[in-house]
């Protein structure tokens, strides 16, 4: 029984991380219609920025803010120079361009920081909280908490604020946006930066409990793709639910079936769902 609950808790904690990165992917897809292969790299870079900033004795919460801010800026630059010039041309081009960015960032990280892993050691982050034999460290609790807070904030932002409404509008009908005076490229930039920021937030949060290395993003982002497809491209709630489902399925499958096929479970779930529901479990909504 302990094992069961421990696995559930593990699944939820990783689900929160998957969801943060996957939501970024899904809103970028919803608005720019681009599958962002570099999303995992934002996660990786943010972890490195957190590490570097923490190294010069800047307190961890501030380090998170700096990491997220850096990712937002990088996101804006990437969107401006590698995505925007390609919008409206062949649909593969922006995807290939994000793939190129991903290769550059990942190998650039190897060049700059070597493949050696780095870590941040914060005692409070690694504090164990033991509830009847089910253990979770403080930082993972924080990750789940911040993820949920972020999703609620994001929901409010998209539903209520002017920029959020404009984002929804762009994802539903770009033509209509232009005739009511919405600056579509500007909204696209904001969205891309937001996606990068979400991913970066995830990276900054896991930095104290994971090893930081150049390929940490790749493994993660593949699962996030699965979550995005399962949730229905561009469907935020569907993506969040799928991310948690995948992480929990993975958690149990690893313990009860096999660790070797860990990366396969998520994809099998995704493919089986696509066979029956080509638009994902939650269906593709119009817009985000």
């Amino acid at each position, binding site marked *: 029984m302990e094992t069961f609950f421990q696995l559930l808790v593990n699944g939820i904690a990783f689900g929160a991380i998957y969801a943060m990165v996957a939501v970024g992917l899904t809103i970028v897809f919803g608005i720019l219609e681009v599958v962002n292969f570099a999303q995992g790299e934002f996660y990786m870079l943010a972890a490195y920025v957190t590490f570097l900033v923490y190294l010069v004795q800047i307190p961890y919460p501030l380090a998170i803010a700096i990491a997220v801010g850096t990712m937002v800026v990088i996101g804006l630059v990437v969107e401006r120079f590698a995505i925007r010039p*390609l919008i409206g041309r062949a649909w593969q081009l922006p995807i290939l361009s994000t793939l190129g960015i991903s290769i550059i960032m990942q190998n650039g990280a190897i060049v700059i920081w070597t493949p050696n892993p780095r870590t941040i050691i914060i005692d409070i982050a690694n504090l164990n909280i033991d509830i009847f034999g089910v253990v979770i460290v403080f930082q993972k609790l924080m990750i789940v908490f911040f993820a949920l807070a972020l999703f609620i904030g994001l929901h409010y932002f998209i539903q209520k604020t002017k920029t959020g409404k404009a984002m929804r509008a762009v994802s539903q009908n770009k033509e209509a946006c232009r005739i009511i005076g919405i600056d579509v490229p500007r909204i696209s930039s904001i969205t891309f930066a937001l996606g990068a920021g979400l991913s970066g937030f995830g990276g900054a949060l896991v930095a104290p409990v994971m090893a930081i290395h150049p390929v940490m993003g790749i493994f993660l982002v593949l699962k996030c793709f*699965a979550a995005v497809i399962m949730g229905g491209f561009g469907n935020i709630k569907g993506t969040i639910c799928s991310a948690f489902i995948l992480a929990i399925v993975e958690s149990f499958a690893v313990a009860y079936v096999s660790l070797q096929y860990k990366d*396969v479970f998520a994809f099998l779930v995704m493919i089986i769902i696509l066979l029956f529901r080509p638009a994902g479990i939650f269906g593709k909504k119009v817009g985000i």
Partner: protein
Amino acid sequence: MNMRISKVLVIIAVGIFLLGIPYFVTSPYVMHIIIFSGIYIIFALSYDIVVGYLGMLSLGHPAFYGVGGYTSVLLVMKLDVPYVIALPIAGILALIVALIVGFPALRLSYHSFAIVTLAFTLIMRAVWINWVSLTNGPMGIPGVPRPTIDIPFLGAIHIETLTDYYYFILILVIITCLFIYFMIHSRVGRALLSIRENEVLAETLGVNAFKYRMIAFAIGAFFAGLAGSFTAHYITFMGPEFTDFYYITMLLIMVILGGSGTIHGVIIGAIAFTFIPEYLRITPEFRDVIYGIVLLITIIFMPEGIGGKINEIIYKRRVKTG
């Protein structure tokens, strides 16, 4: 008439040049890279059928390369099947796998297709790594025999030296080029182009888009399988590393920089990107960064690639000269 004669002369010259390569290339290392260029020409051309002519971004191509490699290696080593038979079976099995994967995947949206094919590559890789009793898992299969081709009445040809391998891959490259050339100039090719340009319109003209997509996807897999089989019997080793994601980056650069949808462009891309990385005297860490930058710059500034640029120049000149 004049044009035609000069064309024939050029073809003869190129033919002599290609046949003569083993006689004036003395370095085994350069021969090795030339043979690898041949492998990558087949691999990249087969990928271009999917990316360039079909217009679908498949990330599943390395898996077919692996299917081909494992199939012929296992057939030859475990069942003593002659290589001449194992080679086509490798291609056919890759083709069958492509049909099975394509059946659900080609009905999905473009983006889902890209990710599902990526998932397929990862799943196949997991199978090869973990099905130890069949594939020997991550240890790989060392000591893959070099190909022997039995010809009735003439005896067996043993492919052993680099020169032998060179002529063998040359034949395969020529077969692949001719096949693709005739395919794109046939009904199938025209159907594919019409689907790529405007699927809805093509459907209204009675082109069954799904059927032609399946055909193109399967043919691409077939040639990838051949390339995989050749590689395994050339390296004399087969392992799951043959399906690294690294190959996708390389293929994309060859195809996109070369010019997707142009045979000569892709050939140039494949040769250039087999030779350049080998000759670049830079720290290997930088190489992939440079790959990424080249890919990015090509996409942003020259999405039609080198082949496309050449076509454009030729077209303009023809227009000018009338």
